[in-house]
């Protein structure tokens, strides 16, 4: 249905924009192992994006590429957190920590989705996201405990990204309308907070106290970053309308 497609679009857009951001690390990581690790995570996210977007596209008689390359900024449904710049490795790791814990809870809950396709995609995704979470936690510990410099950068990263956490847990009418197909984001909040608090404590870091930003990516109201992301992502495809690759 249209509403299921709208829901799949949200899941797909988050994964797509995150993949786009992460892929920039390939050939730029702090060690080659991280080129591979962040690249793998990006590739997984791209895979999830393709599954969700293909599913959404079918409802509208379109393709995944129609949705990725030919929508305008206001038609994207991504969260502000995935649009945030990579920053240094610490910022990327904190963003990964925030998102991977979230996605892990979300996909776990979606295993029981009344929509079999969403449940099936989530079943595949949850295993991969589990690894993303391990990766983010391991690095959060290393960087939080490692050196004064790395701890300072991690505190900074938490401050920079925390404003965009609030949006992740905001329910929309869509969630209520979809009933058992979807998961209300607010229902993930307590578990998410518990988990990230525990990780940060282990990493000798603290939950930031900075306020949440009004972020309404789900309504197509994006951060100032998304326009630049899309300009780059879509430039080649749009120069060749109707072409196949």
């Amino acid at each position, binding site marked *: 249905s249209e509403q299921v497609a709208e829901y799949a679009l949200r899941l797909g857009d988050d994964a797509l924009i995150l993949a786009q951001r992460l*892929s*920039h690390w*390939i050939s730029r990581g702090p060690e080659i192992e991280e080129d*591979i690790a962040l*690249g793998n995570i990006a590739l997984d996210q791209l895979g999830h994006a393709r599954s969700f977007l293909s599913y959404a596209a079918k409802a509208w008689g379109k393709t995944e590429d129609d949705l990725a390359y030919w929508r305008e900024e206001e038609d994207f449904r991504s969260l502000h957190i995935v649009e945030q710049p990579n920053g240094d490795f610490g910022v990327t790791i904190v963003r990964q920590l925030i998102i991977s814990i979230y996605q892990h809870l979300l996909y776990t809950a979606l295993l029981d989705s009344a929509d079999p396709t969403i449940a099936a995609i989530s079943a595949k995704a949850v295993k991969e996201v589990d690894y993303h979470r391990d990766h983010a936690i391991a690095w959060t*510990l290393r960087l939080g405990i*490692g050196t004064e410099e790395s701890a300072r950068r991690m505190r900074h990263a938490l401050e920079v990204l925390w404003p965009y956490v609030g949006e992740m847990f905001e329910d929309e009418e869509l969630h209520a309308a979809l009933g058992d197909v979807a998961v209300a984001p607010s229902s993930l909040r307590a578990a998410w907070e518990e988990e990230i608090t525990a990780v940060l404590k282990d990493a000798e870091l603290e939950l930031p106290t900075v306020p949440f930003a009004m972020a309404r990516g789900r309504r197509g109201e994006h951060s100032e970053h998304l326009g630049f992301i899309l300009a780059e992502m879509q430039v080649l495809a749009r120069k060749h309308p109707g*072409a196949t690759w």
Partner: protein
Amino acid sequence: QAGQDRFNAIIAEDSRIEPRDWMPEAYRKTLTRQMSQHAHSEIIGMQPEANWITRAPSLKRKAILMAKVQDEAGHGLYLYSGTETLGTPRDVLNDQLMTGKAKYSSIFNYPARSWADMGAIGWLVDGAAIANQVPLCRASYGPYGRAMVRICKEESFHQRQGFEILLELANGTEAQKKMAQDAINRFYAPSLMMFGPPDSDSPNSGQSTAWKIKRFSNDELRQRFVGMIVEQVKVLGLTLPDPELRFDEESGTWKHMDLDWVEFKAVIAGNGPCNAQRLQRRRDAHNEGAWVREAAAAYAAKMARKTEVA
């Protein structure tokens, strides 16, 4: 002397030298240079392709390209491990790369200017690399030969993907076809030069051949490669930018245009379009990652102390 004899015997019977075996210093040095150059080439070779990941024109191609660049990083790591078995640690090798003391395949000093270059690099550059590397699967040094087996498998997968990109473009719009032909035009000569100077001008390969590291001459390998792409380009319906290209029945060899060895040497010497950029990117990644590596080391040390105490 016993070591030397044993070494000679192993080489003679076409068996393999392993890391703990005695080997002549020159053999060790030659292999270290060759294997680390190969590793560096994988790492630097990520850059021209990484340049197009964020702009790949379909999600499928984006995924394939990301996976390919990942594979290259993996090959790099695998080859660095292989080189380490010869006694030179990875950070030393990396320093040699960053300071410009070590070389890497000169082809990666050319820019990847269009999406079609993802095809041309896969088809021609990986194709030439495979032609070079398949015989290395039987290289006398065990870890090198085994690394090559694995790498060649993935490389031929990459080559097919590159060919597919070009095939799709060649059957696409006029603009796509033009893009594909242009990429082939730019990468044809540099890929032929990947085999190194003509045999008549390549005095160093005698010892490598005797040691059974190198199995074929530069020109022999180049011939094989040309023979292959001549056939494949027909499938694409495109052309190789070489008016002199023909099979000479008399000598049984492919005749091709003169290659610009002056440019080749200039690129190796550091004058290529992207030498400075490629090295700088590597240095930037390394320098900007220093605090991360330091933190990881400090963390590991702290954890080790904790375990000791406990």
